[in-house]
């Protein structure tokens, strides 16, 4: 495939965020090209399709400094889950989306209390959440093991099949004339003195009137040469998937203290993740699975849902999550005309379509965005850079 010489908007990153940004731009009649760096990617292309709404305790625990950012972003997650439902309707293609609700389980009175406090805060922020005791869990989630004493239930959570969703968005984009250029790595951005940008790829330069960086963890590296600090961090994570089984796990299941996400796909496979580390390996930094994560993740999963032990592990894989400071990095880059970022702060897949819409709105100069994206400004880290 070859580079076109010129395009109105170039979106760097072909994950769910980049695709949705491009889709919204194409819908507005904008000429758009999505570039992606490799045939084998981390990010969305390895995502397992959890739709997160309630605050993930693993972040509260791992990144306590990011909690204010997470709380501030909560309304975004509610809107993002709804945006997925709209998108599925708009595209007229099933994503196997199920808003069957999410359970964050507790094993001790202390962690039940922790969840109850979290539940109260989230309620005040407008989430549909409630605490469930053992008896209610036995009724709605009989698959949970005896170790679970209660859970926070969030009705808006759920799951979808990312393989179907990504394809549907890609097809809709292409049907509107949006172009895709996979396996093209942008090495460097250069502001054009005449306005616009030159994108330098191994296969040659490309001129773009405007550029959206939706490159996940790779975004920081593209901005650094411009003197901008956006501390995107690649977090390679482990996923396990079992053989197909009869309906077993009806919800998206997480744990109040330990790292786990559990859900079952429509075709019957149980997908188990939750943030166990993988490792980036080799010169191309391929995410690679580790024995300790594979085993530990499954041990915890079969502790929470004992019947999982009866199933076989059929595949494991690793994908790359992007963390920043708990908030999106979203909107125009001040001082760099025509440059925009579109990086979800966390749970990037859940936020993808919404962040894509907001980013496209910023590119198009829309004033009627559903959210004030000023707090997500890509230059909020400048102070940190000065300190460093």
């Amino acid at each position: 495939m070859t580079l076109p010489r010129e395009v109105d908007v170039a979106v760097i990153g072909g994950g769910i965020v980049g695709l949705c940004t491009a889709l919204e731009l194409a819908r507005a009649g904008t000429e758009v090209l999505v570039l992606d760096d490799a045939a084998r990617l981390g990010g969305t292309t390895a995502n397992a399709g959890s739709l997160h709404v309630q605050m993930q305790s693993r972040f509260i625990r791992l990144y306590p400094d990011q909690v204010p950012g997470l709380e501030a972003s909560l309304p975004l997650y509610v809107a993002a889950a709804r945006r997925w439902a709209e998108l599925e309707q708009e595209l007229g293609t099933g994503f196997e989306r199920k808003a069957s609700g999410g359970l964050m389980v507790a094993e001790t009175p202390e962690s039940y209390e922790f969840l109850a406090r979290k539940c109260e805060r989230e309620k005040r922020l407008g989430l549909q959440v409630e605490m469930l005791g053992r008896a209610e869990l036995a009724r709605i989630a009989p698959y949970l093991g005896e170790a679970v004493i209660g859970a926070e239930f969030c009705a808006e959570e759920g799951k979808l099949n990312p393989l179907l969703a990504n394809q549907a968005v890609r097809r809709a984009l292409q049907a509107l004339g949006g172009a895709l250029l996979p396996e093209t790595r942008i090495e460097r951005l250069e502001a054009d003195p005449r306005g616009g940008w030159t994108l330098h790829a191994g296969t040659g330069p490309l001129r773009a009137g405007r550029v959206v960086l939706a490159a996940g963890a790779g975004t920081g590296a593209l901005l650094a040469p411009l003197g901008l600090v956006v501390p995107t961090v690649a977090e390679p994570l482990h996923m396990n998937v079992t053989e197909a089984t009869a309906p077993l796990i009806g919800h998206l299941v997480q744990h109040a203290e330990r790292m786990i996400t559990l859900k079952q796909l429509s075709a019957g496979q149980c997908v188990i993740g939750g943030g166990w580390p993988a490792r980036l390996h080799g010169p191309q930094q391929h995410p690679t699975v580790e024995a300790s994560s594979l085993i530990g993740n499954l041990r915890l999963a079969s502790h929470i849902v004992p019947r999982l032990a009866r199933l076989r592990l059929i595949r494991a894989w690793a994908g790359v999550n992007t963390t920043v400071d708990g908030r999106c990095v979203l909107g125009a880059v001040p001082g760099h005309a025509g440059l925009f970022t579109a990086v979800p702060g966390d749970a990037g897949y859940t936020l993808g379509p919404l962040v894509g819409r907001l980013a496209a709105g910023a590119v198009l100069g829309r004033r009627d965005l559903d959210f004030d994206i000023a707090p997500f400004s890509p230059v909020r880290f400048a102070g940190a850079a000065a300190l460093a």
Partner: protein
Amino acid sequence: MPEPALTWHDADGAPRGIPFHPGQSVAAALTAAGVRDLRATRRGLDGEGRGLHCGMGVCQDCLVEVDGTPNLRACVTKALPGMQVRHQDFPGVARLPLGPVPVPDDAPLPAQEVVDLLILGGGAGGLSAAIAARRCGLDVLVVEERTALGGQYYKQPAPGLGAAALDAQQAEGAALAATAEASGARILRGAELWGAFDLDRIALFDGARTRLLAPRAMIVAAGSYERPHVVPGWTLPGVMTTGAGQTLWRSHRVLPGRRVLVAGNGPLNIQVACELAEAGAAVVAVAEAAAHPATRPRAALAMAAADPSLAIKGGRYVAALRRRGVPLLHGTVLTAIARAPDGALRATLRGPRGETTQEADAVLLGYGFLPSHETLRALGAECRFDADRGQFVPLRDAALMTTVPGLYAVGDCAGLGGAPAAREEGILAALAVARQLGRAVAPDVAAEESAARGRLARHRRFQAALWDLFAAPRAGLSLATPDTVVCRCEEVTRGEIEAALADGAPALGELKRRTRCGMGRCQGRYCAQLLAEHLAATQGRPLDNLALFAPRAPVKPIAIADIVALGTPERLP
């Protein structure tokens, strides 16, 4: 004494007693009783279920529910008296035990067990390596997936069957296995190496529990499996590999069918046809893709010069077929299989004189082999594509070490050279390991080295001439129609693959995500290389080290209970 029996519950639920001989596999017992359709699939694309195909635990198609546990491979599950074996609906888990499932305690992860040499595979190469390594005083652990040693070449009678060796080939294997067992090597049978994370972090299930190993060196002697022959109907029950048909007879003394058609490329098909005919099967024909040997006299002469006795053995098989009136059709390729109205399999053969059809109860397909290099690749061994033989092979140095220090590859998993060559390579790799570990190599063992090198050179000359003699074009996807299943596990058709490829010419990984091809239980063993070659031909993609799916644990599906029984890893996030 009455024979033991298991109970088979057919798709309609009707139970039926199936007698078997002690030692036989569930698949062998069911085949002997004429039961071929073992499970339903998710899409049911061919209008039929699936049955025994590879016969060696690779394809994961012969899944049945046994005593309430779903998805067990009938070909590697031993039949036991009173066993309740059920035809499976998709996804086949209706009878999960209702009682509490043991939850593992929080015991810490055991330290890796250190061993001098871990050998994967108890066939010709692995056993030979074990014997040589023991002679050098190494501490040796052999992991063999099946209960019988000897691998696919020596195919030993199933333990417990009490059957005598059929011929010199089985007797030679029995002698090799006995020597290996007497050598002091620890041999784990029925054990599955499921995770190769790093050379010092190898996870295996030994039949009772998962163990983590840290070998100082490892020899992979994992052999090969049949190259898929993707034609309409290749997933029908009763269509199996030539190796599966041979295992039924040689290991279980069961005929794959009363009427058998053998189609493929290479000498194994002729040998198996002879064996089955001798055992009483009506072999309707052997369709050999290569042209008649008379058209390649130079290769025939070279083969005879390299190893006269093996060449004579081959000639005897051909003569035996002729004596029994079994047609050997040269230059003939099987192009389709369909179900005839009377329930038989009707195969279409395309040969020099056009198309013909043959009917049989069992169709054996043997279109060459693919190396089992998944563990090597998972450990980071670099591979290259051998275009002549159509296979990915690990790069090896003169000591048979891969690009990963301490990791060696011998026999067919490193490129197809046959069992006699694998035996010599086993010796050479074992000696290299002994030197790598600084062990003294006794003079008599060292003397063996140059003899082994000489024999290996001769075997390689023989193999090269043999495959010149049997050279035939590989069909790839060319015989598949749009409706033909390419990925057996996920039931992805050629049409679906072509549609995905027409939409932006995606690379293999993206093709997998779009169609699910290669996401199933066999881990892409059958479809990955076909697709990689297809992408090379149609998109010009390189057949390089990254051309196949990324190799990851588990190497084969493994019960989560068996994984977690290990304990808790040291790092608990």
